[in-house]
């Protein structure tokens, strides 16, 4: 597993003049591949472009874009878990689903306004708890790492099977009907004062953009911190790391919980975007999507994963609209040949070659 890292760090240095302001801020560092003045100026430019989007793009495009952006948190969480911690989880959508349903139940019961905020907080809290509990079960049980993908997959399938059969009227929590296969409808959108964060107006768009910017920067800080180094060390040589005095299970658990929390955030955002959540959002197909986003993006680079996620979401949307029943074939071909052409991930490979053009190697 060392050849990718090799690339990581060498390119990492490539993109950074040592100890620049960004590194002092902690948002750049050896464990984030891309960085430095050029990176951050691009970051700023893109952010501005996105924020101003409604001025030059159609409202619908912005709303549609929101739908793609909603996938980013879960993907970034998985990038941290898989790319930095070396733990591949197929179960992120389980936390997506739990959060979505939890938000639905609480929001329906606690009503509009402040209620929805409480619901969001409650949902995220609950999801983090579940993630922590399951993570404890995985890591403190020292489950061997190649089983974890399947274990997490089983978790989501259990959840889907369960949710699918809650059509019965006995599955009612307060005012909220779980609704079985048809899903839970009429979930109120997040509201803050006069602002309503639904899928039909811009507030949600800006909320999501802000959240993603914060998450990206936050994760970069985490990755370059001492914590991040230990996590990376665990992925490279777990036993060695433990013999340096670290309880590696605790680090893995923390990362797993963060990833679960981020997946939950996506779930809540989805529920408030569509006023709706259904079992298929924790189904087999849904479960594979985050893995694909991260793999295509390049799991060692948060920025690449972010771009990859949005690009793939947009692509599948475009395919559905324009290519009709060829959508799956095209998507499949992209994944297949993409992985053959660029094993580290398509986006990261492209960005690397761009970076090489922009910055010449210090060594």
């Amino acid at each position, binding site marked *: 597993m060392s050849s990718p890292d090799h690339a990581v760090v060498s390119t990492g240095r490539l993109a950074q003049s040592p100890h620049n302001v960004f590194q002092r801020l902690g948002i750049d560092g050896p464990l984030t591949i891309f960085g430095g003045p050029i990176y951050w100026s691009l970051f700023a430019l893109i952010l501005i472009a996105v924020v101003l989007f409604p001025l030059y793009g159609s409202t619908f495009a912005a709303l549609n874009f929101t739908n793609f952006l909603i996938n980013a948190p879960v993907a970034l969480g998985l990038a941290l878990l898989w790319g930095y911690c070396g733990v*591949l989880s197929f179960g992120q959508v389980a936390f997506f689903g739990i959060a979505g349903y939890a938000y639905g139940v609480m929001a329906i019961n606690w009503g509009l306004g402040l209620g929805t905020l409480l619901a969001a907080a409650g949902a995220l809290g609950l999801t983090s708890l579940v993630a922590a509990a399951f993570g404890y*079960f995985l890591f403190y*049980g*020292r*489950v*061997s790492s*190649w*089983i974890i*993908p*399947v*274990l997490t*997959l*089983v*978790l989501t*399938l*259990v959840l889907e*099977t*369960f949710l699918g*059969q809650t059509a019965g009227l006995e599955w009612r929590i307060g005012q909220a009907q779980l609704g079985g296969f048809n899903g839970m409808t009429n979930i109120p959108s997040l509201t803050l004062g006069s602002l309503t964060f639904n899928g039909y107006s811009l507030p949600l768009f800006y909320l999501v953009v802000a959240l993603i910017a914060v998450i990206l920067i936050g994760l970069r800080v985490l990755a370059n911190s001492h914590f991040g180094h230990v996590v990376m060390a665990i992925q490279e040589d777990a036993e060695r790391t433990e013999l340096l005095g670290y309880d590696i299970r605790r680090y893995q658990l923390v990362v797993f919980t963060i990833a679960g929390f981020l997946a939950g955030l996506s779930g809540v955002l989805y529920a408030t975007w569509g006023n709706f959540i259904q079992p298929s959002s924790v189904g*087999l197909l849904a479960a*594979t999507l985050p*893995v*694909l986003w991260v*793999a*295509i993006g390049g799991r060692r680079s948060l920025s690449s994963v972010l771009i990859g996620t949005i690009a793939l979401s947009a692509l599948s949307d475009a395919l559905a609209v324009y290519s009709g*029943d*060829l*959508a*799956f*074939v095209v*998507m*499949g*071909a*992209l*994944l*297949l*040949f*993409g*992985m*053959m052409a660029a*094993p580290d991930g398509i986006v990261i490979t492209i960005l690397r070659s761009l970076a090489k053009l922009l910055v010449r190697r210090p060594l």
Partner: protein
Amino acid sequence: MAGDLFNLAYQFLVNVSFLMLAAMGLIIVLGMLNIINLAHGEFIMMGAYTATLSVHAGVPFVVAVVLATIVVGMIGAIVELLIVRRFYANKLNALVATFGLSLILSQGTLLLFGPYLRGVSMPLGGFRVGQFSYATYLLVVAGLAFVLIFALWLLFYRTRLGVDMRATMQNPDMARALGVNTSRIYTFSFALGAALAGLTGALYAPTTTIVPLFGTAFIAPAFITVVIGGGANPLIGALASSSLLSVVSTPLSSQYGTFAGRIGLMLAALVIMRFLPDGLSYYLQAALLRRRKARPESSR
């Protein structure tokens, strides 16, 4: 009473054989190549399609099954040569690639053959024991599953090829040093896995509706069985885990309904994996070893 017992036994056998057959191909590929093949379900689907189409073309069912096995096996060989072998260095990528492949295969089938194929009627009819009636065919399939396990055991432990395969599985470099053509072994193993998937599809074709997503029903059980079985000794693993899972799910589903059986199976899987993380086969082997070593140690 005896009727009920037979009924339970029958259901148990049917469950075990379903899990075993679903998992068989996957086990070979995972055990030999450490590749998680997400296109496994589509291989099964292609088996069902080949068999069904040939039956419609007038081929007798038995021949059709053999045909399906061979055809899918060859497809598997091609897939390994063109795609899978590029991913041995980076196995998790194989997972993404094979998922892409599965999308192409299933939707491609939809575009090629339409939303469904007319089914094949289940051969051999049924019989009655006590108050219940049963499908003979499913019993035959169950029997076949066990024969298959035995055949694989022979292949692995009684043939030169099998020795080479196990050598490659345990230590490729060493095997290569000993003059084993590992890359051919890999191709063969993947093809074998595909062929077994094809066989599974063909065998279950008469029991179900032939649609492009035929394979998806097999995926989850297959993975659960494989993982619980563990890599240490795939064959023992498959046998043990499918039996264990069926022991859990059969009574549940016959007592409290299929849903209970379903959930029971998955929870059992979670628990087993939590407490036996290396898979049943590992512990079985360890147990065997310990019994063998017991004498010298106690003698001291």
